[in-house]
Structures are given as structure tokens and as C-alpha cells.
């Protein structure tokens, strides 16, 4: 069976003269759940809209199974991009009712599963007779989740699907996602700000920072490259002298640093020293790598 990859080659996006996405190569392989993480304005939505042919790239190409995605009905029918819903459209409030929104979607996705959509609506207790502009943020998210899951598109992309959802709903969403993934083996790309609880769901993570693709790697492999080393400050400094330190914090003489290195290198560096090693959670890695701590220092 041929593998239908979604491939972006050297894509960039400029708005006026500002390049919001620098040259990026990325391949979305079928049968995986990807997590797209990046800070606000990192270019997540831009990248996703280029991948899905909803926004023309400034340079580069986007292909699906070797065919151009832009204006290609066959490719577009297999790719679902569930965007964040807004209460406002270009010409005023979003006055579509939820059910019309979904019925419209059903026209465009050849694999649309109506029964599944209805099950999800009932499950979420979603009132689809309400206008979108009258829905709460959480309800809008639920509507996009229904759209994404029921599209049954081989490649399904969700932009901030858990925004405004409470912790129980978020857990429910990831379970639904995994459930459907196990049944169908579809590809999912999920962008989110709430990283920690999602990291166990993502097989690979895609990290964007300031319009650059920083990392695209198996989640476990990525996380295992980071280590906390803690102990007395001079001992910790001694242990980390040859290592790349991403972050450092401490109280008095106590010091904890985060380093990026292979495990055996860290073990070798710490050998014989009175320091403790511990893994770093993905959320923290994200903060250190994307430089979010600058603000902390200012505060």
C-alpha cells in the first residue's frame, strides 16, 4: 500500500513584508498522532493552514500523496482542518447554527460519518440549534471536535481543540481521540497550549518557535534528552561543566539545572558526585526551549 504523506517542502509565509513562517520542511506520515506545540504567535495556525491548502504559501510546495494540495478537491477531501471557531466572521457575527455548520461540513467530506456526529453531539450535550456566536468557548471547541472526528478524514488536524474545555472534558476528548485512532488508524495533528496532559497522547511532537520548526521527534525520545540535575551549587556546576544548560534555578546553595544531553553522558558527568538526576516534564522543556523564562526573570 502506498503511503500517503502530507509533505511541505521549503514553505514560507509572508504577510506584507513580515515572514511569519521561515523555510520549513515537514512530513506528516499516516497513522500517527502528532502534537503541535508552540507559543502564541509561533506560526502554528499559519503552518496548519498552509498544510491544508487554506492559505497560499509565499514559497515552497505542499503535497499530499505526491499531488499538490492547493485547489485539489481530491486531496482536500481527505484532509480536515478543524479551526478554532470565532463568534465573528468577516462581515459580522457568525450566525450559522451548529447543525448548519456540520451539515455544510458533511457536503465536503466524502467520509463524513453522520451517525458518529450525532453520537458525539448527544455525548457532549451540545445544542446545535444555537447560533455559533451564542456558544461559549467550550461549546465552540466541542463543535470543532465533532467536526474533526466525524469527518473521518485520513488526515485530521485540530487547532486548539481543548481551548475553553474543563479538565474533565479535555480528558474525555483525548480518550475519544485515542478511541477513534485505535479503530481507524487515522492521522491526527493536534495543536495545544495545555501540553502536560496531552504529552502521553502524542506519538511525535512538532515544536514551533518564532516561525521556525525547532523539533519534530518521537515524544519519548525528545523528553529523554532532558534531565534535571540538582544538588549543592558548586557540585552541580562541576557536574554540568561540559553540558548544555537550558535553565537553572535555586534557593541559597541548592541548585537545580536542566540540561540537554544523552542519558549516558549525563550519568557519566554525574558519576561520583552528590547530585540527583530526574526527568523533565514536557511542559517544562517547552518553557525552557522556547525561552518563556525571560518573563519570569523580569518579574
Amino acid at each position, binding site marked *: 500500500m502506498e503511503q500517503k504523506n502530507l509533505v511541505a517542502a521549503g514553505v514560507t509565509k509572508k504577510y506584507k513584508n513580515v515572514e511569519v513562517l521561515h523555510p520549513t520542511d515537514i512530513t506528516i506520515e499516516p497513522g500517527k498522532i502528532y502534537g503541535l506545540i508552540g507559543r502564541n504567535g509561533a506560526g502554528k495556525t499559519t503552518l496548519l493552514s498552509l498544510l491544508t491548502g487554506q492559505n497560499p504559501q509565499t514559497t515552497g510546495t505542499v503535497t499530499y500523496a505526491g499531488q499538490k494540495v492547493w485547489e485539489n*478537491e481530491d486531496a482536500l477531501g481527505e*484532509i480536515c482542518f478543524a479551526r478554532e471557531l470565532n463568534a465573528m466572521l468577516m462581515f459580522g457575527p457568525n450566525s450559522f447554527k451548529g447543525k448548519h455548520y456540520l451539515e455544510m461540513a458533511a457536503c*465536503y467530506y466524502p467520509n463524513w460519518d453522520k451517525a458518529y456526529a450525532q453520537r458525539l453531539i448527544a455525548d457532549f450535550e451540545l445544542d446545535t440549534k444555537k447560533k455559533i456566536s451564542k456558544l461559549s468557548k467550550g461549546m465552540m471547541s466541542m463543535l470543532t471536535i465533532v467536526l474533526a472526528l466525524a469527518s473521518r478524514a485520513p488526515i485530521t488536524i485540530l487547532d486548539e481543540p481543548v481551548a475553553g474545555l474543563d479538565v474533565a472534558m479535555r480528558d474525555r476528548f483525548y480518550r475519544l481521540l485515542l478511541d477513534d485512532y485505535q479503530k481507524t488508524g487515522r492521522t491526527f495533528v493536534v495543536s495545544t497550549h495545555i501540553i502536560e496532559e496531552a504529552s502521553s497522547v502524542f506519538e511525535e511532537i512538532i515544536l514551533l518557535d518564532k516561525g521556525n520548526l525547532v523539533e519534530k521527534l518521537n515524544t519519548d525520545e525528545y523528553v529523554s534528552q532532558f534531565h534535571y540535575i540538582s544538588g549543592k551549587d558548586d557540585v552541580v556546576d562541576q557536574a554540568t561543566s561540559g553540558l548544555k544548560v537550558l535553565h537553572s534555578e535555586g534557593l541559597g546553595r541548592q541548585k537545580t539545572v536542566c540540561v540537554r544531553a544523552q542519558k549516558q553522558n549525563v550519568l557519566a558527568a554525574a558519576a561520583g558526585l552528590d547530585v540527583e538526576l530526574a526527568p523533565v516534564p514536557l511542559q517544562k522543556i517547552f518553557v525552557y526551549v522556547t525561552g518563556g523564562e525571560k518573563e519570569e526573570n523580569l518579574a
Partner: protein
Amino acid sequence: MMRSFRNQIRYILQYIGIMVLAMLVAIPYMTIVLHEDTEFSMLSYQAATYFMLLLFSFLFICIFNSSNLMPALQFGATRKGWFRAMLVNKILFAAGGIAAILLATPVAQIFYGQPVVFGGSVFPLFAASALFMASYGAMLGYASARYGAKWLAIGTAVFFIVLIGATVLLLVFLPTERLATLASNPWLVAGLLIACIPPEFIGWLVLRKIPAKG
């Protein structure tokens, strides 16, 4: 709340702007035809009114469409596909416009006791057209939301038949010499021709590269 209010204002201003633009185009044309000889002026006036209504409605439909367009593009509709759907809308509207003129005849007869479409008040024509447009807009919105462009195309086929039927009826009811004068008025013909082209053309130029927004 403030943001929503400001958006409302922007929306209204945009709408008014488009209306003013449409009138600026329509008024010179109306002045020209109104200065024709008196016997013919009423017909020209009505034609001009119809033209103006067409223009209004096209622009209105353009706005209407673009609010539909965003979700459609988000669902993987192609811009080409949407252009086709817009063209379909156009044909639907032309058919409806002619139907409205024909409908105005009996309506006017009820109100005025005489046929007024060709030689009487413009009001019934206006009212009928407005009525038509309201129902048309509602129908179009519902159809495109519910069934998407495929069913709109089927709808077009049906309306196309109505359009041909209406044209035939128009030709039958309109005296030959008036038809000849109508055709010999270059402004009227040119106006009607122009009315048949621009919004979709401009729409297409804009739509070609437009990004879908959330």
C-alpha cells in the same frame, strides 16, 4: 462586548459603503435614461430601477456569499468550486429578477386596477423585487448551508428552465416595437450586459488567493 459593538458598526459601515457605491453607479445611468423621450421614459426608468436592484443584489449576494465562503473553504472547498457556485447564484438571481417583473404585473393590477409594469408606478416593481430578493436570499442561504454547491447546481437547472420560460413570456407580452427600441438603446443594453459580468469576475479575482480564516 465593546469588540462586538465595534464589529457591528464596522459591518454596518461596510454595508452602507457598498450601497452608496452601487447608487453612484446607478444614478448617472438613471439620469441618462430618464432624459429619453417621455413616452419611453417610464420603461427606461423601470429598466434602470431593475438594473439598480440587480446591482444592489449582486453586491449583497457577494457579501452573503463571502460569509458562506469562509466555512466552505475551511471544509476543503476549492476556490474554483466556490466560483462555480457563485455563477450558479447569478443565474438564479437573473431568473428571479425576470420572474419578479412578471409577478409585478398582477400585483400592480390588484393595487392600481391597471397594468403598471410598462407605464405606471415603479413601486410595485420595487416591492416585488425586494420581496423576491428576501426569499431568494433566505433560500440560497439555507440551500448552500444545507446541501452545499452540488444541490445548488441542481437548483440552478430548475431555475434555468424558469428563466427561459420567463424570457419567452416577456417576449410574448412586450410589443415588438418596444422590444426593438429597448434593444436599440445602447445604454440599456450595455448596462444589462455589464450587470451580467462584474461581481463574479471581481469576486474571482479576489477569491483566487483569499485565505480561509477562523
